[in-house]
Structure formats: C-alpha cells, structure tokens
C-alpha cells in the first residue's frame, strides 16, 4: 500500500523544499521508493495539469481520494486585516485550502519554522502564523482543538530551513507506524532534544571560555557573538548540513532558527548581556555555579587553545 503525500506552500521561501532535495542515502527519489510514497502534489516537482490538480483537490475534499500526509511549508498568511489576500490562489485566500486539506489528512507535518510557529511576518501586516502555534503559544491557525485523522496534532519540524534528515526520518516513522514522541512545542524528541551546541567543533573553546570577540577569530561564539547553540534544540552539529559542516563550525553564530520565537526581536550577532554576563545561560544551568565554573575554566585554559592551535 502506498502512502499519499500532498505538499502545499504558504508564506515561505521554498527553502524547505530545496533543503529536502539535499537528502542523501537515500536521496529524495530513493526515499519515495523505499517508503512507497505516492506524491499526489508538490508545487515544484509535480507535473499535473491544472484541471487534474483541481480535480485532485476536489476528490480529496470530498473524501474520494485519501490523503495520508499533508506537508505544509511556509506560514499561513492571514493578512492584510484578516482577509488572507496576501497569499491567494486564483483570487481566493490560500489559507482556506490549507484548512480544508488539514481536515482530511491523517497526518499534518509543518515543515520548517514558518509553517510550525509563523516565523517571518508574525508581527506584520501579512499576519503570518504557524499551523498550530503562533510563536510560543499553542493554537495558531488551526486552533488548539485541531487533531489530524490519526489523532495527532500538527507535527512541527522547525528549522530555517528544516533539515532534510529530520523530514525524511519523520516520514519514515509515520509511515512505519513508529510512535512519535513530541516535545512541548510538538516537535519529535528524536531530533529536538539535543542542543545545537552538542557536537560543535568549538566545544573545547566553550569549555575553557576561549571566546571570539571579533569575526574570524576562531573561538566560542557564546559570550559575545550571539550564539544560541546552548539555548535551543536541534541536531545541526550532530547530523551536519549538506553532510559537511554547520554554521557554528565555520564561525557563524547559531541564530536559534528552531525556536518558537524565531526571528528574535533583539539583534543577531550580539550576545545580550549585563556587564559582560549573558542574560541567557545554557538551558537549565544555575547561574551561580555556571559563573564560578566559567571563571575557573578560563583560568585553566591551555595555551594551545588560546593560540587557536587546533586550527578550528
């Protein structure tokens, strides 16, 4: 039995689709084969003519065609002034089609931060919102009571973009009936309990508080450069990007793109601090212990690290 999949794009940049194309072993076409996914529709990859596409939509909405998985990429644009006219499909607000399809799907997967929590434009005239969250508050476009036919709420796969491995893995679990454990923001724990910081090649710098104060210095980016690796969850430094590296590894601070409130309102590239002490410390630590530990760690920092001899 094949699994039907429908992909719809709202207010987004298409980045999650392009990221999905990065999938490797299996790549995208192999994955669809292995999981017997029948892509009913994807706006960039399908070649249905419009009549057939409209017929498909009608058949899904009438229940004639089963819809197993609905993937939503991009936020739901409800503006301006609640009209939904910032994103239309043949003159009609696209949000209406999204809601109708969600009412028929066995599973709804929000791919990327915009679809999950609203992302870009949540405080703008476009009135962007996530499928079942508006930033950190549960509810969003479909509301708290919504459940897909499987009984699950919308499964959120945040990340800007969503990493291809996370999407491939989630599809595989859903299709193989492996129970998904979700965290408080409705993201699968298998990918969203690890911190971005775990696996960063700058961990040794972090350990001894050898900090980067200026771009390209090679050091930990936490105290000055605004790195959120220790504050947000995501497997970037475990599974890596494009199988090669990660932002923090090359010296770009983590911007917390998996966070419910991404993009943050305060500046990027800068750690918010009070007299040199970050306002936000690594998730779960006690401030007093952490500061004492960091002070001692800095004093114990080996010369080779201070001199950046590791070349990272």
């Amino acid at each position, binding site marked *: 039995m094949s699994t039907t999949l429908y992909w*719809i*794009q709202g*207010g987004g*940049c*298409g*980045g*999650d689709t*392009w*990221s999905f*194309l*990065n999938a490797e072993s299996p*790549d995208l*076409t192999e994955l*669809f084969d292995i999981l017997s996914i029948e*892509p009913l529709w994807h*706006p*960039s*990859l*399908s*070649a*249905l*003519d*419009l*009549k057939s596409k409209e017929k498909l939509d009608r058949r899904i909405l009438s229940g004639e065609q089963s819809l197993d998985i609905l993937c939503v990429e991009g936020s739901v*644009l409800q503006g*301006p*002034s609640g009209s939904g*006219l*910032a*994103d*239309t*499909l*043949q003159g009609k607000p696209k949000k209406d089609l999204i809601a109708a399809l969600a009412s028929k799907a066995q599973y709804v997967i929000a791919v990327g931060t915009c679809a999950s929590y609203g992302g870009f*434009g949540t405080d*703008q*005239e*476009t009135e962007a919102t996530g499928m079942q969250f508006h930033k950190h508050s549960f509810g969003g476009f479909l509301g708290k009571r919504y459940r897909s036919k499987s009984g699950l709420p919308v499964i959120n796969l945040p990340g*800007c*973009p969503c990493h291809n491995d996370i999407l491939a893995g989630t599809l595989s679990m859903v299709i193989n009936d492996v129970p998904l454990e979700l965290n408080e923001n409705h993201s699968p724990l298998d990918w969203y309990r690890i911190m971005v910081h775990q696996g960063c090649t700058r961990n040794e710098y972090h350990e001894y508080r050898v900090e980067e104060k*200026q*771009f*390209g210095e*090679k050091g930990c980016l936490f105290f000055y450069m605004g790195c959120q690796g220790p504050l947000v969850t995501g497997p*970037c430094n475990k599974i890596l*990007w*494009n199988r*090669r*590296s990660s*932002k923090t590894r*090359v*010296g*770009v601070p983590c*911007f917390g*793109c998996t966070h419910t409130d991404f*993009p943050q309102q*305060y*500046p*990027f*590239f*800068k750690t918010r601090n009070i007299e040199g002490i970050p306002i936000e410390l690594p998730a779960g630590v006690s401030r007093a212990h952490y500061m004492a530990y960091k002070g001692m760690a800095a004093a114990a920092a080996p010369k080779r690290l201070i001199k950046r001899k590791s070349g990272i």
Partner: protein
Amino acid sequence: MHSKKNRVIPINRSEGDLEIHLEMENDRVVEARSVGTMYRGFENLLKGRAPLDGLVITPRICGICSTAQLKAAVKALDMIADVRIPDDAIRVRNLTLMTEQMQNDLRHAFLLFTPDFTSPAYREHPLFEEAVKRYRPLQGETVVHTIRETKKVIEIIAILGGQWPHSSFMVPGGVVSVPGQNDISQCRSLLANFRHWYERRVLGCSLARWAEVRTLEDLDIWLDEDEAHREGEVGFFIRFARETNLHELGKGHGNFICFGAFEKPGKSAMNRSENAPYLFPPGFFLDGQVAPFNQEKITEDVTFSHFESHGRPRHPYEETTVVEPPASDSEAYSWGKAPRYDGYPAETGPLAELVMASNPLIKGILDREGPSVFLRQLARLVRPTFLLPVMDCWLKETGVGNEIFYRKNEQQENGQGFGLIEAHRGALGHWVTLEHGKISQYQVITPTAWNASPRDANGIRGPWEEALIGTLVKNPEHPVEIGHTIRSFDPCMVCCVHTIRGHARRTTARIFC
C-alpha cells in the same frame, strides 16, 4: 473576423506567488498582466532592526538564492562601513555564489523547464519519448542525475559557509570562515566531480571544445560532429527547441540590464588576460547599444501595485512599501512593483549577462534572431562554462597567501549603502539606510521583480508581459508556449499556466516565485 474565446487551458504545476492574466483572440495572446499573488513584507520587517540583521533575514527571502541575497546585503553594509574586502574573502564570497548559481541553473533547466517537454502537447514530437525518458518528474534520468549532482556541488557552500540554504557567513569586511587547505582541497574535488558530470552529460564535450562555438554555423558543425554532442543535454535541448521553433517564441522588449557579476580579487592568475573589474560587466542594453550603468537611474513604479503611490516613481532609497489592500475598484493588480531603468523596463538574467559581456555566440544569435525562449535557455545552460574555470583558479588561490578572510571595521550608526549583484536570475539590489544604529529604510529589487514587473504609469508592460504578446497557443488544452516563455525567465521556482473560464476572455497563469 476576430473570435474572442473563453477557454480552459490547463498546464502543469500550479501554485505560487505569480499569476499571468491573459486575453486571447483567435488563440493568440493580445494582452497579458503579470500578477504577483503573494506579499511577505520583508522590507518592513527589517525597519528598526540592528544593521547586521539584514544578513540573517534577507537570505530568507528566497530559498534557492539565499547566498545571493546575503551577498547583496553584505555589499550594502561594506559600502556603509567603507571597508576594503581582502582578496580571499572576495574569492570565498564569489565561489559560494557561483556554486549556488550552477546549482540553480541546472535545477531550473531540468527540474522546472524541460519537464514541459513531456507535456501531452508534444505527443507527436519526434523527440517526445526521449524527452519523457529524460525529464519525467522525479523519475526521468536527467532529473535523477541533476538532483544527485547539484546537491553534491553545494557541499562547497557548506564547507566554506556552514550550510545551504540560509547561512550568514558574509559580514562587512569579509567572511567569518577561515577555510584551511584541507577544506579547499575538498572543495576542489567536489568541483572537479561536478565539472566532469557537466562536461560529459550536460555539454557533451569539453569546456575547451565548447569555447570554440562562436556562431550559429559553428553550433551546427558542433552538433553534427559527434554523437555525444547531440545526446548531451545542451545538444538535446537545441534539437528539441529547433523542431519546436522556440527561437521564435517569447521575444519581449529586447532591453537588458546587468548589475555586474563577480568582482575580481586584486591579485589573481585570472587577471593576467584582462583587467576588467567584473567577470560579467554591468550595463544597460537598449536599441542594440550598451550604455554605462548608473544605479541612480533605477526607480520603482507602483501605479499597478497594491502599494501606496507617491505620485511619481521613486529611487529605492526614497521608496517605501506601504500596503494598499487589494480592492475590486482599483486598477492595481500585483503585489510586485515595476522597476524601471531610466524609465525603461528591462529583462535580466544569464542572457543579459552574456549580452553585456559581448559573448560572440549569444550576442550573434541575439543580433540575428532577437531574444527568445531558446536563447534565454541556451544562455542559462552554458553559463557554467564561464564559471567553472574561474572557480578552479580562485579555489587554488584561496588561503595560500597570508590567509586574511576578514578586515576589521567599525560598525556605523548612520549611513547609506547599496549592494548590487548578479543573482542567478539576474540583477539583484539591496538599498539600505541606517539611522541611529538602526535600519531606517530597506528596499530590495529582485531579478524576478524586473522580469515579472507589472505595467508602469505610462502603461508600458513588464518584460514577460511583453514577451507573451502575440504568442499563438497551438493546443489550448496544453498551452505549453505560455509556460515556456515564463519559465525561460526562470521565475523563482515554478510556474503554471492555465486559463479560467470567467468574465471576459481572462486566462490565468500561475507561477511560484
């Protein structure tokens, strides 16, 4: 006698940010309107934010050209900081952008453009079966290879910049990464692999052999010369396109704009042969002449856009973006603005770049046949031939001198700057004003904004509106001609064309941008 008809003309792939409204007479397009159907409000989102925030936010405008957005954003900030960029940082910025560009050109060609060759409209075409074998969505041989090879080559961006898409490794003064020779040698292997595939499967010959093709006659000789030339993707495209007369389709105004692509590092082996500052020079092409480019001549017209007008088109430094919600009694029809250069609409993209560079083959065909679907696609398919050797040279040179990838600079509180680059679809500009340490004004004009522009106050159509006029739709069930024309401009992602039965000869096309 004219017969005006309402027809339902469905074509594949329909969802996204752009629609084309067409009026047809005797199956010919007599009027076209390009309608942007989505507004995301990025410019307003940037207002009041910290100066560097554009480096994180603007890449999210477009998932397939996020490196291009990053580069335009950083160049505007470089200008404000008045900092000179070290050669190695110029190389890394260009190498990553060139990689993204090749990825884009080939994915566009084989995942988005050529799937139309498998349309039932071509069932009688002698090359139809072969086209289906190559381009069937998610299954065609070329599609599968393209997915495989493009995702490998973009590993170069991850090595040099952390990830693709959406990294922010370019900062005023250079780049944050400090690649070592271990990283560079991996990039070189990835590039060599990609080049091998490109020569073997796409071009069907070596870059050196292709460089000898300088006229239409040369092209015929090249095509006849070798089975591999005919069977490569470029050869197959030429054969399919000739049979279909794609060189007569989708003409347009014939004005071109290019902001200048890939500034050269000061010291490079590549500079020995010529000393032009760019690989593809900036310019504006009108009536067969290239005029020097001056960004002050750019304006945005919002007469037909859902934004408040100020009575006259304004330069992006002055232009604001204030929504005027769509209303049925308004003549505005698009969420896109109408960019103009010196008052003229202009087409942008690989064809424009090669015209400014006076490439003999492309410019020769332009002089003989004018712009067309065929020429735009040919320019895009062969653009990597110009990038690959330069990339190889710059990669070899990266980090061998004194390894400076970043030059310290003061972050400015106030100032104005612009970043003009060539993204994959053509001219991309960011115009930024800082006041009291915050962004007070941010305007972005994307390549698709030029190409998909609506009319201006004088009623002058945008480039692809113009390119559609006169198009004969042979098979109204499958109006592939409309799809080819729009897709030859590489609208950001995907486009679809269909007509809707409704009031007054309206047909609609949808494009994702």
